[in-house]
């Protein structure tokens, strides 16, 4: 009973629980987010939401690759870090403003995605997962190398990057950053959503479902896998750039497995394959991580139990356990071809009077 409710909540979020089309639900969600700051949230809490937005972009991009195309990348942080560092380096060496460095960094990420994706995706096997897991790890290690210190700044990274946008719309700087990240999240997720539900997205799902059958339909699956990987990386690097300029710094932890794992956590919390799910997941994670869970040690303090030292480790452990249980119970989640797109097909604009009679009978039957 509880499990089936949770299951329904985690699968097609709105469509099952509230019987509202996912698209409308997502739109309503964005509306809530839009008016959230007006509810009077403190600056520190606003920071949490800003990072929720950034990681939502990150997670949504991961979902396109894994949830819709079935290619697993365990090093999404690689592109996150490359985005951030590229933008930082362009600023450091050429003093370029963010509106140049960020698109440039994103373009560079396309190159990196192709370089990494091509060898891995053209061969059958777990290679993408292995390589994407190893590369950021090794980059992190390599940053400790002496000769590179002056360029990359070693463990401290590069600091004092320009603010994302020096717009002071409201007295509270944080609020404008929040709205900016929200806007970028909205745009990114709409783009990814549109791609996922386009004809190309249909091909992605065919690869997810049955590569052999897809090949038998004449599809060059390597090409599409690469496409998915590149698009996914593009938005991950965007998230990295935003992160760099909100935090006003970059450091090797941007490449960490923990960050890559955020994408996994958020996507599974929200519903893999849904595209809007990871956004919800990001918020759930951020709220839990920053607001709910910290209450626990405070609560336990009243009983004289001090777990602050172990607390950070415990938090990640809890989330990882949750993901583990989710994956074991519902391994393939839902890569549902959203019900909205089906309605679009039904109302295909090409139907003229002499269109296939079958369509008309079908439409009549549906009503």
């Amino acid at each position, binding site marked *: 009973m509880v499990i089936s409710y949770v299951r329904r909540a985690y699968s097609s979020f709105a469509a099952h629980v509230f019987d509202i089309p996912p698209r409308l639900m997502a739109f309503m969600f964005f509306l809530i987010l839009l008016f959230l700051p007006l509810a009077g949230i403190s600056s520190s809490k606003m920071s949490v939401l800003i990072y929720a937005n950034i990681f939502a972009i990150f997670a949504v991009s991961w979902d396109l690759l894994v949830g819709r195309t079935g290619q697993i990348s365990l090093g999404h942080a690689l592109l996150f870090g490359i985005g951030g560092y590229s933008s930082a380096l362009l600023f450091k060496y050429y003093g370029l403003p963010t509106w140049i460095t960020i698109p440039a960094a994103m373009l560079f990420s396309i190159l990196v995605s192709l370089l990494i994706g091509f060898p891995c995706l053209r061969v059958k096997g777990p290679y993408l997962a292995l390589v994407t897991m190893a590369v950021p790890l090794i980059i992190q290690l390599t940053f400790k190398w002496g000769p590179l210190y002056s360029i990359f700044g070693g463990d401290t990274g590069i600091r004092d990057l320009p603010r994302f946008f020096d717009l002071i719309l409201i007295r509270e700087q944080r609020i404008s950053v929040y709205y900016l990240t929200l806007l970028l999240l909205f745009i990114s997720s709409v783009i990814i959503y549109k791609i996922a539900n386009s*004809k*190309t997205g*249909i*091909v992605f*799902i*065919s690869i*997810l*479902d*049955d590569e*052999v*059958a*897809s*090949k*038998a*339909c*004449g*599809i*060059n*699956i390597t090409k599409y896998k690469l496409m998915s990987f590149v698009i996914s990386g593009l938005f991950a690097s965007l998230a990295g750039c935003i992160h760099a300029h909100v935090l006003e710094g970059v450091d090797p932890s941007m490449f960490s497995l923990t960050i890559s794992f955020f994408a996994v956590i958020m996507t599974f919390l929200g519903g893999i394959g849904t595209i809007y799910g990871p956004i919800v997941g990001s918020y759930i994670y951020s709220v839990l991580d920053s607001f709910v869970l910290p209450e626990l040690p405070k609560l336990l303090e009243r009983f004289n139990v001090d777990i602050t030292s172990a607390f950070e480790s415990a938090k990640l452990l809890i989330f990882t356990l949750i993901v583990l249980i989710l994956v074991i119970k519902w391994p393939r989640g839902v*890569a*549902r*071809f959203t019900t909205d797109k*089906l309605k679009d*097909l*039904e109302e*295909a*604009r*090409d*139907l003229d009077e002499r*269109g*296939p009679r*079958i*369509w008309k009978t*079908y439409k009549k*039957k549906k009503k």
Partner: protein
Amino acid sequence: MLTIHLLEVEGLTKRFGGLTAVNDVSLQIEEGEMVGLIGPNGAGKTTLFNLLTGFIKPDSGTIKFEGEDIVGLAPHNIVNKGIARTFQVVRPFRHLPIIANVMVALKSPRGAQKIEWLKTMERKAADLLEDVGLSELALEPAENVGHGDLKRLEVAKALATEPDLLMLDEPFGGLNPLETDFLTKSITRMHLDEPSRAILIVEHKLYALMKIVKRVIVLHQGEKIAEGKPEEIAKNKKVIEVYMGKGTHYA
């Protein structure tokens, strides 16, 4: 006069470890021919299919399609050259609705190219579904659809690329007599609509197959043991032996 066969296979051999699945098989298929491929289980029919469509590489032999050597080409490239196949065990895209299943094939280079001017992909997909009688189920997710309908979906997907050679792997498998009859009629109609398209059918249900095809090739243990008109094959002693076991007479 030199004729270029639509499909020309010479000395095709494939071994899996110690087992020779296909042994020195040669055959030709002409434009517009309806050919049947039969043989008891394990005769190598599906292996032959996989070889012809590029899913496995032969150990030796040649395969020429429309005069061009296609050995070594990737499966999707072979599809785009004009050979399409269905699978014996249906392989639908579970998460996609029926019409989207067909649209995948229409997104391939050949599929997209073959869409008539001013027709949208959705419309072409709808037409293809109508051809196989699946229009009712167009928006149904494939995972909810019954086996018989999925068999027809396989055919629709294969037809989407308008192949010059259509290869059907046990299209009647698991169909009830009504469905079999409908599919037989569909295939016959298909052939009339597109006389230049050759169809190669692997099938166990011989009564259905023999009605459609003009020529039959018989495989046994990886070798071609007979070839000819359906009536001839039905009376061929070797073929009967192979199917019924030695020592049986067709009374």
